[in-house]
């Protein structure tokens, strides 16, 4: 049986720290937490029509990890490939956890990295839930 896979799409938004956190959290899931089950979808490549990225997002479940409520990653996936299996918004998560202004956007400080780790764990929870559906 082949290993189950999920596509994780991060907005990587440059304007705010939440975009940086979404990016780092996605990378942490890929590199450390669920390396065998995670495929990252590169949003810029996806948006210019890269076949492999779009096809994967069509055929496999996806989790959108957006920095803010504009939900660019979620909207892009749904526009070009299909409904996402789960959508996470970092600003909502930070608010829920009582984390305000965690870090500069350019380089995450300790608090920012902790926030990214927490978001990564949320992604993993979402992945595990999708696998058991």
């Amino acid at each position, binding site marked *: 049986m082949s290993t189950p*896979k999920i596509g994780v799409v991060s907005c990587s938004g440059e304007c705010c720290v939440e975009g940086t956190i979404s990016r780092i959290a996605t990378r942490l899931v*890929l590199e450390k937490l669920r*390396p065998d089950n995670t*495929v990252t979808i590169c949003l810029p490549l996806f948006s210019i029509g890269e*076949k492999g990225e779009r096809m994967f997002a069509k055929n496999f479940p996806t989790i959108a990890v957006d920095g803010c409520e504009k939900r660019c990653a979620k909207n892009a996936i749904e526009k070009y490939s299909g409904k996402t299996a789960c959508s996470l918004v970092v600003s909502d998560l930070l608010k829920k956890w009582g984390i305000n202004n965690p870090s500069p956007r350019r380089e995450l400080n300790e608090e920012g990295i902790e926030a990214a780790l927490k978001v990564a764990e949320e992604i993993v929870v979402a992945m595990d839930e999708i696998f058991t559906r």
Partner: protein
Amino acid sequence: MSDDFYQEVADKFIFTVKKRLLYTENDVWIEMINGKAKIGITDFLQRRGGDAVFVELPQIGKTVRRGDETSSFETIKAVVSIASPFDSTVIEVNSTLNDKPELINEDPYGEGWLVLVSPSHLEEDKQYLMTAEKYFELMKSKIKDELGKGSRKEV
């Protein structure tokens, strides 16, 4: 699968093997043109290697032995050596790659060709080549091995 290519999908990567070319087990393709051989690398090798930043091409007139390095390309990760499929003499190189090494990645079977050589022992060396169909099967097993190693931290 298209008319011109065999395709294998692994995660989000679509690996292609161009039909009607010959191949080596070292991921090199060969197109025979009037007794000369045009050589390049396969889609699998360019993906595994990464974005080509520099390409080293041999001098025209250089003789190489089968298995020796005929050219190489440098990526951010490594230097990828390309083994010559023949005992041969280099008669032409794709000098466009000096300014546009990315052609190796963008069009490995077309504009990303590397060298044109004149084989000196073609009949003898042909036994080491394989058809596109056979290489496609070999490539699929290589892909399986790569995925098993978990080498996907960089895409």
